[in-house]
């Protein structure tokens, strides 16, 4: 059986009904374990003091904010090429989750920045391109909301997602060129010397897993909601036509 068959809405609903409890459970478990571990049972960093605990929120949410857009990009491509409705609806369902992730990352980053850099916000390349990503999210959601016909909306938002991705990458380079950075480098890459120490590293991984699972659970659930709304709409439309 090919993977595409799950793109049938009914099949998708059935499947997601079965796996959703698992994802919800795992997500909540990982988040609770990871965050409690991080908050209560990790030492303070010698330079950053207790603020290092923010890493358990900031890094996973920032990662998910970016990954959510990538997921939307893939889903949009699938919709454009294969025209599976579930795919378009999944992209629609993921966008608000992505926005909240972005907000969390922005907020925790800003709070972290105040003690670390002495400012809430700096026009650093990573921060700036992240902010632009936030704008793309807003535009994407606004476009979905503004268009009445669902298929038209799916097509147009997909095109926007594609073009937006290209420009997001372009902006990243532009911003890099425009200003030199202040923000942390890649601290998770395993081959680097200055990796985050293990005491911080393992609970961080648990938190990341928690955010990923939460994202999956939310997107599956929200996709189901979108499917139901779309079905309601279809039935109502037919009622009205009668």
């Amino acid at each position: 059986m090919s993977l595409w068959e799950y793109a049938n809405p009914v099949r998708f609903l059935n499947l997601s009904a079965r796996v959703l409890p698992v994802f919800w459970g795992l997500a909540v478990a990982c988040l609770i374990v990871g965050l409690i571990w991080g908050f209560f049972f990790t030492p303070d960093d010698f330079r950053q003091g207790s603020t290092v605990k923010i890493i358990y929120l900031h890094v996973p949410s920032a990662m998910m904010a970016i990954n959510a857009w990538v997921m939307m990009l893939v889903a949009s491509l699938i919709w454009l090429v294969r025209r599976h409705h579930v795919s378009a609806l999944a992209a629609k369902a993921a966008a608000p989750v992505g926005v909240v992730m972005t907000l969390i990352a922005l907020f925790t980053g800003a709070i972290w920045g105040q003690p670390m850099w002495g400012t809430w916000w700096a026009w650093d390349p990573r921060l700036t391109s992240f902010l632009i990503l936030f704008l793309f999210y807003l535009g994407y959601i606004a476009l979905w909301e503004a268009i009445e016909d669902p298929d038209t909306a799916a097509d147009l938002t997909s095109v926007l997602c594609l073009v937006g991705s290209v420009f997001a990458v372009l902006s990243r380079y532009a911003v890099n060129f425009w200003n030199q950075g202040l923000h942390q480098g890649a601290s998770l890459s395993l081959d680097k010397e200055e990796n985050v120490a293990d005491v911080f590293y393992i609970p961080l991984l648990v938190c990341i897993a928690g955010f990923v699972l939460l994202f999956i659970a939310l997107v599956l659930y929200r996709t189901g909601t979108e499917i139901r709304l779309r079905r309601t709409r279809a039935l109502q439309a037919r009622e009205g036509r009668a």
Partner: protein
Amino acid sequence: MPDLGKYADAVLSAYGVSSLLLLLLVIFTLRKGRAARQALEDVEKRSKTNG
């Protein structure tokens, strides 16, 4: 409760706001989901009774 030192405000508000945002997201998601389920059931019931 671990001793957060002088950064207590920062750390606590970061955790507070983040969990609030996540919670709101989950609550709104579930509420919208439930409403959608309800609306769909209503419509399906109607379409069955009406023919």
